[in-house]
């Protein structure tokens, strides 16, 4: 062998070894066969990937987690029904003690039995200071949780710091396995990527940034799901998602309204169904009371009627949405009828004239030498908020108020919000308290990202307190009606729209529905919120 051949062979060997090492290092994770075409495998495309699959760090806190169950769950109309509990909780007369009786014979997917200890472990771990769960303040009312044996039945007793009517809504939170998660570091352990739950599906594979794969849990206490295989592909780009839906790679996907429209009027549309899910997902402008312009109630009231919400729904949302007059959606059960504020530019001008804001030479109003001008921030890259902000500025200009729209990151925007406005979004459909209290109660002013309007209204405070403490539904309705009426008189934010979430799905299953969806809509939202109950069309 000549020297040259040796070198060539060595080089080739090195390359081959590198390639082989690459292949060997990626021993393929196993899993079921391919889907495609049938009705027992469903593949859907979503835009956002969960950061973790551990309920202890916040996964699935609004229900429909697939892998887990809560004590309670929501039906299609968002009514609570029992899941790991056998019935709705017994609540003590003072509204501070909630007792749940647990279902017998439920097993985690690793075969270990589900017990009251798992419930206690889940809630205690979430509230533990060392647990990095960013949503733990949702359980702020919870004081202690204990397991109790009552006539041979396992029960869990939650004791609250104060009477809290909405607490049962929080117990849709998924229950983790103490036997598995309890032996790991809660913040970085493998439970975050390889969860073990009691739910209708078992995670088979999660390739981050690409997809999550689930298979039906054959021993599910609620009955084995007909859809055997459920795959969630993570596709950030709307156009790529639409293309992969068209190519047949996906059975369903969430799409912006304009892309979903294409399916309605085409041949492909015949095999596909479009779902427009109602939501609590609102967009609003914060009007901080510390700013001399937005702090003037007259300016806030004028802006409230100067904005053309219907035009925003039509042009920005392509009709997939509704005007918003508060955090509660107008077609929801808690909305106070009669608090709608129709678009009325003449009235806006009149309010401003009366309050002493006189038009200046450049068309912008002035009062005592102050220009009616403020800055409105939105998160850079959020096209939907940008569109809302620009439409808002253009409507305000017609009334003689100058709104300067600016983009920025969270880090840039947050320190400025005592003085500047922001285009915000939020929405939790389960209970009116979840949106109203953090947004409007004066105790929440500037607390993290809560109450960014620095809104402080005595009537609203009183009614929100009454609404969250009372257990009587009629009393709660009365309180929230009064709060919404007070908000109409003193609008601390300009609420703009509620946004529908639009999904397109192969029309192969019967009786599909959508729930009223929250602002953050991940795997648990969409028509596949109850994929475990789907049955094929005959």
């Amino acid at each position: 062998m000549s020297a040259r051949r040796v070198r060539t062979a060595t080089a080739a060997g090195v390359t081959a070894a590198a390639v082989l090492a690459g292949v060997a290092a990626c021993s393929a994770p196993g899993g079921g066969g391919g889907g495609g075409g049938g009705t027992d495998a469903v593949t859907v495309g979503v835009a956002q990937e969960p950061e973790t699959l551990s309920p202890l760090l916040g996964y699935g806190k609004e229900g429909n987690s697939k892998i887990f169950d809560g004590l309670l769950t929501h039906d299609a109309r968002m009514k609570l029904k029992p899941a790991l509990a056998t019935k709705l909780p017994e609540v003590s007369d003072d509204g501070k003690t909630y007792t749940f009786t647990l279902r017998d014979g439920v097993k985690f997917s690793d075969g270990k039995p589900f017990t009251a200890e798992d419930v206690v472990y889940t809630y205690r771990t979430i509230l533990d200071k060392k647990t990095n769960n960013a949503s733990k303040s949702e359980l702020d009312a919870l004081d202690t949780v204990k397991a109790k044996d009552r006539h041979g039945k396992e029960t869990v007793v939650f004791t609250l710091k104060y009477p809290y009517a909405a607490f049962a809504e929080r117990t849709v939170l998924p229950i983790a396995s103490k036997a598995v998660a309890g032996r790991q570091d809660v913040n970085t352990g493998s439970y975050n990527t390889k969860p073990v739950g009691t739910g209708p599906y078992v995670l088979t594979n999660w390739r981050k940034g690409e997809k999550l794969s689930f298979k039906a849990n054959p021993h599910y206490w609620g009955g084995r799901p007909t859809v055997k295989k459920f795959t969630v592909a993570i596709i950030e780009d709307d156009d790529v998602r639409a293309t992969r839906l068209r190519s047949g790679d996906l059975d369903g996907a969430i799409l912006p309204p304009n892309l979903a429209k294409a399916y309605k009027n085409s041949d492909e549309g015949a095999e596909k169904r479009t779902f427009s899910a109602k939501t609590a997902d609102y967009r609003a402008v914060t009007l901080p009371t510390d700013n001399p312009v937005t702090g003037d109630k007259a300016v806030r009231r004028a802006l409230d009627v100067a904005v053309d919400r219907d035009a925003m729904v039509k042009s920005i949302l392509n009709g997939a949405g509704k005007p918003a007059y508060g955090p509660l959606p107008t077609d929801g059960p808690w909305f106070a009828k009669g608090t709608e504020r129709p678009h009325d530019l003449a009235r806006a001008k009149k309010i401003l004239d009366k309050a002493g804001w006189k038009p200046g030479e450049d068309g912008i109003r002035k009062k005592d030498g102050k220009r009616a001008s403020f800055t409105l921030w939105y998160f850079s890259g959020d096209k939907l908020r940008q569109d809302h902000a620009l439409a808002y500025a253009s409507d305000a200009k017609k009334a003689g108020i100058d709104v300067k729209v600016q983009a920025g990151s969270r880090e840039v925007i947050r320190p400025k919000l005592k003085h500047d406005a922001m285009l915000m979004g939020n929405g939790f459909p389960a209970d009116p308290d979840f949106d109203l209290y953090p947004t409007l109660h004066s105790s929440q002013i500037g607390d993290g990202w809560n109450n960014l309007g620095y809104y402080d209204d005595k009537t609203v405070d009183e009614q929100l307190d009454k609404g969250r403490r009372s257990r009587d539904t009629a009393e709660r309705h009365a309180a929230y009606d009064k709060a919404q009426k007070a908000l109409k008189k003193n609008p601390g934010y300009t609420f703009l729209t509620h946004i529908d979430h639009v999904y397109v799905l192969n029309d192969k299953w019967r009786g599909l529905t959508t729930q009223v969806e929250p602002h953050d809509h991940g795997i648990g939202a969409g028509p596949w919120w109850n994929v475990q109950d789907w049955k094929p069309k005959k």
Partner: protein
Amino acid sequence: MRDGGRRRLAAPVARLVGRRLLASVPVLAAVTFGVFAVAAASPFDPVQQYAGSAGLSASQETLDQLRQNLGVDGPFPVRWWDWLTGALSGDLGDSTALRQPVADVIGERLGWSVLLCAAGFAFALLAGTVLGVAAARRRGGMLDRVVTSVSYTLEAAPPFWLGLLGIWFFALQLGVLPAGGLTDTGSDTVTAGSLLRHLALPALVLGISQVPWFLLYVRQGVADALEEDAVRGARARGLAERTVLLGHALRSGLLPVLTLVGSRVPELITGALLVETVFSWPGIASATVEAATATDFPLLAALTTLATVAVLAGNLLSDLLYGLADPRVALEEM
């Protein structure tokens, strides 16, 4: 004779490797220190990045607690030192963005990246050499002009743009190759066949973005070699054109390419970063993007160390190959 030659080479090679290993220690220390300094100066707040959308309805108390738990406060030299001492004892720390130990993140993803880079690199080397030789054979000819001008265009084209173009053409227009991922969406099993189909487009794009450099170097090297006395002599002796071209001209023309192999490694890593993101390839590069935007210190530091090691190793490799290929080069002097 051959054994004697090997013995004569072994000692200088070992000494060169040893010297490079020693030199890499301060380099790695400086690079990781730099990463911590840059990340500390980043405008992103690790707590906000960690909390994600839930952070936008979190109370201040929760956010403060997160800040404390994540240990993101304190001067960066201290945090760098903590990280360094931890890493030396084998604990790379935990990734905040991915909620996993850093070692797991690397273990799960490194293989896929190596596979992609190796395939792309092999393609670039092969295509660059073949086209370069062909172009050098008739300088100024039709093929030469086409190949050269396309190369200059490609040198200017960013890999992510090539990636999107590739998806548009092969996945959308022709529908012959998948647009991304490791397997078909409905399937979990990684079979050799589906892996090859999914690897083809990203490796091709990565390879094509590297081809121009090899091609232009080979073309220049071979063309120069064809002018050398030795080659002209070989031709004059009536040796076959094939022997002259491949046996004489290519051999000496390839020498500069060996240097190039080492110096292309950083470009390859940057290219992989973009290509993996475009094709949702579950490799280490896409984790780098995530770590950087989330100011995930431990992951970022580990990945930078990895990239630095790859670059240093690439340089060492090309120096060694150069020494082996050209007897005039003394390894002692490198």
